[in-house]
């Protein structure tokens, strides 16, 4: 009898052990890298109570079977207020992941398809813009499933050094930026000086003043000293086409390669692109485009840029393969993202909506551009 009980007991124990063995669905995911961060309980509590500050805590990172020491902190502007917030990771010991020693881990708050950033980068590259490195991954802190994120390169001195691009000045356009002095405009409140690291905004102020005061007939001789007009018009036209509601008064960089060169643009942060709840029609609004449209040649150039983008770049042939590629990467882990799951989102539906938007938007632009 004892023997039977013993066998039964061992059987139950074995079965229990088997049942309790942790089955992590991410272990079988090969399509998407998984980044795991380990932060001590104290530090994590500290991080949670300092989301609005830029305060780092130590973290250990495991990525692609390698182990890294790092620090981690909250990142972003409004996105810090969301449940799925963004992080900034700085690796120690000169370590690098994907050739980066520090990077953003962005939750892509407004992008239920997780394709907007790679898609926008691809299209911007076709248009000749400088863009940043970005790759999707599944990010976890302390074994809890944090979900789908995008690893994004930071734009700073190292960004330019890595591309052998000369840089004299870099200014980030922050939320609600105005490009006019017709109203009081405190540049330090709406722009961030990145390079050089000081509080001198006078080059930007000179540009904005030129935008306010240059006679339209002199735009291509005088204003062109401050900004690459053609490139800006292409940027504006593209942002309008993709309904980037967060990209005309926020989320781009002005950079100068030399002291006397005009500002060029580096776009940034694409989770609000392809916003099908908004309609920027044919011209998204900001102070720059309002000023430039005082010159008929600028308007004609804008029209031609927009037409060219809609005909040759913003089309199904260029967009769909990128969307499908990302879809293949993330489809198996999409359901594992608790925030996406909580919102009842379905990746296939979201992808279908995005593709339909591209189709409809292109058709709208091509049908109406001549009326501009």
């Amino acid at each position: 009898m004892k023997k039977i009980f013993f066998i039964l007991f061992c059987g139950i124990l074995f079965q229990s052990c088997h049942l309790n063995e942790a089955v992590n669905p991410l272990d079988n995911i090969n399509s998407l890298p998984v980044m795991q961060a380990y932060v001590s309980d104290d530090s994590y509590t500290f991080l949670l109570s300092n989301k609005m500050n830029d305060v780092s805590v130590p973290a250990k990172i495991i990525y692609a079977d390698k182990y890294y020491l790092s620090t981690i902190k909250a990142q972003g502007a409004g996105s810090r207020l969301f449940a799925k917030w963004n992080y900034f990771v700085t690796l120690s010991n000169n370590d690098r992941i994907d050739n980066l020693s520090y990077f953003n881990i962005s939750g892509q708050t407004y992008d239920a398809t997780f394709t907007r950033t790679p898609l926008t980068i691809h299209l911007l590259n076709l248009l000749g813009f400088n863009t940043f490195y970005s790759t999707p991954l599944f990010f976890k802190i302390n074994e809890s499933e944090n979900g789908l994120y995008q690893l994004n390169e930071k734009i700073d001195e190292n960004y330019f050094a890595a591309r052998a691009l000369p840089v004299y000045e870099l200014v980030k356009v922050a939320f609600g930026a105005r490009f006019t002095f017709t109203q009081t405009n405190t540049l330090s409140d709406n722009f961030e000086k990145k390079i050089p690291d000081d509080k001198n905004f006078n080059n930007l102020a000179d540009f904005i003043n030129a935008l306010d005061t240059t006679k339209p007939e002199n735009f291509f001789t005088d204003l062109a000293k401050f900004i690459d007009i053609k490139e800006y018009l292409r940027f504006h036209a593209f942002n309008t086409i993709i309904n980037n509601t967060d990209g005309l008064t926020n989320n781009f960089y002005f950079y100068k390669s030399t002291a006397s060169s005009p500002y060029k643009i580096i776009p940034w942060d694409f989770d609000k692109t392809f916003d099908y709840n908004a309609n920027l029609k044919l011209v998204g609004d900001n102070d720059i485009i309002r000023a430039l449209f005082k010159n008929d040649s600028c308007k004609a150039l804008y029209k031609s840029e927009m037409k060219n983008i809609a005909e040759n770049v913003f089309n199904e042939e260029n967009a769909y393969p990128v969307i499908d590629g990302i879809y293949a990467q993330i489809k198996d882990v999409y359901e594992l993202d608790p925030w996406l799951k909580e919102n009842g989102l379905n990746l296939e539906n979201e992808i279908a909506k995005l593709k339909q938007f591209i189709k409809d938007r292109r058709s709208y632009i091509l049908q109406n551009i001549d009326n501009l």
Partner: protein
Amino acid sequence: MNRYPNFILKKAPFLNFLALFALFTASSLLFAQEQIDFTGFGAAGFRVYDRNQLRKYNQVSYYEGKFQADITINKHIEAQIDMRGNSDDNQVKLHEFSAKFEYMKLMRFKVGNIKKPFGSEELLEREDLASVDRSHIQQTISDLGYGGRGVSVMAYYNYNKKRSEFPFSYAVSFFKDNSLNSGIVTRGVYHFDDYALALNYMYLHKGNETPLNASGFCTNLDFEHEGLKYGIALFYVRDPNESLRRQAMLQNDHVYSTGMNISSSFNFNTGGDVIKSIEPLLVLGVFAPDSKATKYNTIEALPGINFYFQKKVRFRINGDLLLTKNLYNSSYTTVGSQIVTELQVCF
């Protein structure tokens, strides 16, 4: 997948504490023959800023601390180590190390990562300021290079009332930092009655592909008598950043900033059991980044009050109003203004 248990991480604060404890024990043994005095402060507070909160959040709770050890090696040599930490950095940093050598009556030497002796306010320790923060002018010129710390060698003498036959203080400091800045700061102070009249000159060399030499001038008149303090400061400094920008644009690169600051505070006893004394204070200042375009300027009005529970324990409220008219703006903004409350305990 938990191949890397985080017990080491959990133990990290304890290990840090252990290391620190070992360090202090070793130091105590090492300096067994020397006298070590510990000073410092701890503070916690709350700030509300007038700023675009999507660029940087406009409410900040904070805490910070300073732990300073003054080590008397012998009657000629002293050393100082100043460690600080705050909630922004979330780590303790070595703020200052310096060694003082005193072999002559009227000349001492200080070597280490020390303050540039430019302006009376800059020379005050954080815990000795009446206001929570330094004035806007002081912070601005420090950012330009006319303040802060650098590895320096300084010859100096601080006025001592016991030696009234020499009513002067002076400092000559050579510094070099790790941002390719180097220079000389000279400061002379004449003390009479309860007044101190100071003159400062600073030569600042910014090295880089396009080096720049800049000069700064400052004069102070300070008064202190039985709890009443006031001071006037005038600054005239070359802005190296704007000068370099204009140099690159082939424009006139001699850009000088001008500023004036008036500060006053009065500490009076209340006779109360809880609040022993109260210190109202007022700082007024005006700063023009370009002396040739003074209509673009910042006006500062900083009223405040300190409630002393004890000489070294005070609760402070400051309202720092900044009115700024930027280049090409026709009206003033209040962006950057703030209200601060803080409890500070010194020891």
